[in-house]
């Protein structure tokens, strides 16, 4: 097999959820255009698709499928790609309760993914039974439930729950939920006792996210702390 032609600078990045190293290249000006066009439209679904498209183009590890990234992986990878393509410093400003604007430089290289403390991927329902959980894939945010804008909060939580359960096990029997009909999974979850359901709900309410802190003292001498946890926080502030 012929060796591949290398015509881009290449960087190693570790995917946070699976700790796997992949290679990325910087985005090109024409790929920046895809993002700017989506941003102009202000449609969250189009912005999400544009980000996914750019991340997919810029990860050059051969067998990699960007559809297998979780949302926080996708956001993290996008920030890394943005950092090597445009620059690692983002200038933002925040209007404080004192009415003044405070400018900050955010170093994208210092943004990490924060995993909730003591969160386990195993939720036990008995001595030998329970659920094996997984982080939902980013593709869930392009499903109708999330893009239609008509779903209720409970419907969105249900969708997250359906996509966060990997297996249900009881003794030696294991049911892979992805292989079961959707209505049967829903019926199964609806039949759970409240304590188990709440544990699953707590899991999806505390998924890992990007994390960066900004601290400053305002003109009244009050110490302020801003937590940035989503891509929107980094680019809209």
């Amino acid at each position: 097999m012929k060796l591949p032609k290398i015509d881009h600078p290449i960087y190693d990045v570790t995917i946070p959820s699976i700790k796997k190293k992949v290679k990325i290249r910087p985005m090109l000006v024409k790929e920046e255009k895809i993002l700017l066009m989506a941003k102009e439209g202000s449609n969250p679904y189009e912005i999400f698709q544009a980000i996914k498209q750019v991340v997919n183009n810029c990860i050059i590890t051969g067998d990699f499928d960007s559809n297998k990234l979780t949302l926080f992986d996708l956001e993290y990878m996008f920030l890394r790609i943005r950092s090597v393509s445009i620059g690692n410093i983002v200038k933002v400003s925040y209007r404080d309760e004192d009415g003044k604007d405070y400018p900050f430089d955010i170093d994208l290289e210092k943004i990490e993914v924060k995993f909730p403390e003591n969160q386990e991927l195993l939720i036990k329902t008995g001595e030998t039974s329970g659920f094996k959980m997984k982080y939902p894939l980013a593709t869930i945010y392009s499903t109708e439930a999330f893009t239609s804008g008509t779903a209720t909060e409970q419907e969105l939580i249900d969708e997250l729950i359906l996509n966060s359960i990997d297996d249900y096990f009881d003794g030696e029997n294991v049911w892979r939920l992805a292989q079961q009909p959707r209505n049967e999974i829903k019926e199964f979850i609806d039949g759970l006792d409240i304590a188990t359901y709440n544990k699953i709900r707590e899991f999806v309410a505390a998924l890992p996210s990007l994390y960066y802190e900004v601290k400053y003292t305002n003109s009244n001498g009050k110490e302020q702390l801003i937590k940035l946890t989503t891509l929107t926080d980094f680019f809209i502030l």
Partner: protein
Amino acid sequence: MSHNTLGNYYQVIFSLAQHHHYSIADIENLYPFERDIYVDMLTDYLKKLEDERAGLA
């Protein structure tokens, strides 16, 4: 993507292509940081020319 807007994107490409004869395809295949460097260098160069012209006048 707070560093740029679609309007500015097209304005820069138009200026580089129309006034400085860069090809649009070449610009679109640069990395954004490279384009920014070229624009900065070009701006400095034009300013230097303008200063020299002002000095001669």
